[in-house]
């Protein structure tokens, strides 16, 4: 499978160069060796460190990474060399996470530390001297030569934190215990950490003008709350709160308002805020069903063609068929992630895997939906494909955690099977019910 991905990426790279300058790229051999080495390293590391993890997700991510690289190289060779370095760093982090956390549960131990880290990361761009405004949103941090978008990492930290808190308190959050009038209301202190975390990240994101990410966090929190407790009210409450926050944001933030205007009336704002989305549409229309072919189009007309709008760039040259393949690849990754969640016997692992998978799925939707004008456009990246170190590295970390959970499942299943074999069929049940931490924790308060 990895081989197939490598062949696809190499072929696409060669074609894109042929299409653009009519010659095979001069660096095709070193390029192929590098890609080959990186992907092989990731593959071998995964086989050694998490031998029973899902075999599909890494090749798919590698494919997305490869397609993204080809398009970045086709648009800007300088960015491509950075992206190659970031791919290396991403895979190093991928291996690092697998080494550092032999069990997903290990993550749970550091949840407050992780949460704190996540919040610090979120606040970082607001800090004077190192924070930086780019395109109306304050998302960037630059320390020395390195610029990065901390929110990409914060989302993983928050997913871990939410998963662990919810795994512990799901039952408490599912039913009210304090009576106000005729309503049973939740004990506030159970909800407090979540609300606090949510409040901080929302405030920070509003201060940073980043609507896309705030929507992402919101979906993560509300989705996990609902999945953990089964209360539809959380979904309704979440939607209501988000709408409230959004309306408030529109009043306060000019950046957000112009984005919504561009969404509702892109043609009227062609010269200004609607320009990018319409150029994106022209690119998609030019691509049509089969695309113009790699290297044959003019995606460089679109602003941010290699980052936020790489989806449109790919649509121009690979067409509807190429984008459909891309969407299917994401669905397969998200699907594998959710299957991992379903198979997981621990609430924490289950919620973690769900959260991370949903993060990826919703992020794809926010980007692609923004470009196709299903929702207002917000500047976030397409996982694994867009140009950008923070995005690439954080998504490799996300993938490593998902694969770690997947490996855990298989091993626990094997242990359980072994137990069943030793003690007969009846012995299975205690293992299964004893493992979720939620059950033991319920007794404590």
């Amino acid at each position, binding site marked *: 499978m990895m081989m197939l991905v490598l062949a696809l990426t190499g072929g696409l790279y060669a074609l894109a160069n042929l299409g653009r300058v009519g010659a095979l790229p001069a660096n095709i051999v070193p390029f192929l060796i590098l890609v080959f080495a990186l992907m092989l390293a990731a593959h071998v590391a995964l086989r050694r460190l998490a031998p029973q993890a899902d075999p599909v997700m890494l090749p798919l991510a590698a494919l997305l990474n490869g397609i993204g690289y080809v398009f970045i190289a086709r648009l800007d060779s300088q960015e491509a060399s950075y992206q190659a370095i970031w791919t290396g760093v991403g895979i190093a982090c991928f291996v690092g996470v697998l080494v550092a956390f032999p069990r997903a549960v290990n993550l749970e131990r550091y949840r407050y530390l992780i949460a704190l880290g996540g919040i610090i990361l979120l606040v970082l761009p607001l800090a004077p001297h190192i924070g930086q405004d780019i395109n109306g949103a304050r998302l960037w941090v630059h320390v020395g030569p390195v610029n990065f978008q901390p929110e990409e990492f914060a989302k993983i930290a928050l997913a871990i934190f939410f998963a662990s808190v919810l795994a512990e308190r799901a039952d408490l959050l599912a039913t009210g215990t304090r009576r106000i009038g005729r309503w049973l209301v939740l004990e506030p202190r159970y909800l407090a950490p979540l609300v606090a975390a949510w409040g901080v990240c929302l405030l920070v994101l509003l201060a940073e003008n980043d609507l896309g990410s705030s929507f992402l966090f919101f979906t993560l929190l509300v989705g996990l709350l609902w999945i953990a407790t089964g209360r539809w009210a959380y979904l309704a409450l979440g939607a209501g709160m988000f709408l409230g926050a959004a309306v408030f944001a529109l009043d306060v933030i000019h950046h957000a308002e112009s984005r919504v205007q561009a969404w509702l009336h892109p043609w009227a704002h062609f010269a200004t805020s609607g320009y990018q989305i319409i150029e994106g549409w022209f690119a998609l229309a030019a691509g049509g069903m089969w695309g113009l072919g790699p290297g044959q189009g*003019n995606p460089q007309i679109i602003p941010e063609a290699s980052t936020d709008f790489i989806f449109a760039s790919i649509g121009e040259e690979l067409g509807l068929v190429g984008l459909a393949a891309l969407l299917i690849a994401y669905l397969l990754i998200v699907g594998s992630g959710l299957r991992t969640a379903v198979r997981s016997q621990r609430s924490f692992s289950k919620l973690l895997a769900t959260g991370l998978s949903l993060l990826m799925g919703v992020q794809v939707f926010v980007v692609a939906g923004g470009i196709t004008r299903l929702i207002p456009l917000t500047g976030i990246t397409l996982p694994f494909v867009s140009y950008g170190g923070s995005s690439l590295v954080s998504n490799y970390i996300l993938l490593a955690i998902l694969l770690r959970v997947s490996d855990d499942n298989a091993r626990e299943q094997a242990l359980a099977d072994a137990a069943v074999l030793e003690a007969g069929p009846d012995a299975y049940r205690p293992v299964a019910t004893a493992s979720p931490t939620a059950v033991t924790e319920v007794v404590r308060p």
Partner: protein
Amino acid sequence: MNGMNRRVRLAGLATCLLLVAVFVQLNYLQIFRASALDKNPLNTRNVVLRYEQPRGAIISADGITLAQSVPSHDQYKYQRVYPEGALFGQITGYYSFIYGTDGLENEYDAVLSQANASVTFPTDLQEVKSFFTNQPAPDNLHITVLSRLQRLAANELAGRAGAVVALVPSTGAVLAMYSNPTYNPSALASHNQATEQSAWKKLTSGPSSPLVAAAYRERFFPGSTFKVITSSAVYDHKPSLADKAMPVLTGLPLPDTANQVLHNFAGEACGGKLLELFTVSCDTGFGQLGLDLGGQSLYDEARAFGWDRPVPLDLPGVAESFFPQPSSFVRNAGALAKSAIGQESVQAVPLTLAMDAAAIADKGVIMTPHLLGRVTGSQGQTVTTYRPKQWLRATSAATAAKVTKLMLSVVNSPNGTGVAARIPGVQVAGKTGTAQTGGPNIETWFVAFAPVPNPQIAVAVLVENQPIGTEYQGGTIAAPIAKAIIQAYLQSGGKP
């Protein structure tokens, strides 16, 4: 735990639905709305794309390159150049980033652009490369115009406003089509916007724009050249009039007018039968013929000769020649008499008059006029060749033969108005025209074809803005130009 799994699956389903929504929207944008978006005027993508690709060359029948794309090393990859400049400007047209296209660049855009490039099987490495890059070299357009005839036409006009159109009667192929003022399309094809804009401003600011080619986009009073059609109408509609001896007059009183009189040129007196009237271009005689024929007959004949209908030349914006509706002559017979001699509101495009001469030459048939000769692929192989088509039957072969006799007499008779067109050893048939414009100047014409009996070329020559003199200037000014063109063409035996 099971409930949680159910909800995880539901969340998965929701994600799935979100991405399906994206997919559906992509279908809408990339398939259903794609062509509308492609055609949106705000969409510069196609323009940029076109400028990044080479465009086919336009080549004259004698192998001179009239337009081609050369690598440009600027923001676009290719620059359109016109090596012959103004000489072919009104035929090639321009290829402008801001102002679009005109002429052949417009008419044969699909041939010249990449879109229709004929794909050949790659046989060497270079071709394998271009096969993969989907950039086969574009096809080239070979036209029927001979650049040496075109140049001769320009030289003969010598900067005077006017037009020369030469056709092959049997095929409709355009051999030369030149008019003054003309323009050089190079500046309009510039990649520099300021250069383009100032060139455009210059071309469109004057009273008569060179973009409106006199040869095929402008109408003029045809004057006596219209007598070719009047004579043909006589043979077709009232043959007896051909033998009716008209009284010798200096002026014909016009009916339905307040004592207006139609005078002969320079106050001469003339009369007689059709042959005599035609040879000396007798206005009073033809005025009477027009009155005798009636408006309907003249109108029908003009229609048959390609007037009052769109001309199918393969260029954009070809003008129609105009002959008034028969109803306009009711209680206005004076206008009818004047129309019969190509005055009043009758207006001709030089191209139409050349086609009418060709109709007489080609036994009454008007072939579809065309510039397209053949299309060749990047390796010189012929992709398509133009096949001549009949456009109209103007008149019968018998009538054409009779009118040919009239036209021969114009050149051959000692008292003919077109003696200046005589070529030793070649029978030239022609008709002069000297049209009053209402101003101090006149328009001089000569239409001709040769050699009789097997004509190979038909010509219409117009020289505008000539001072009124005592000679038939159609014969002294325009006829020598027609003669030069015919002679040059026949000397080479019609070969490039």
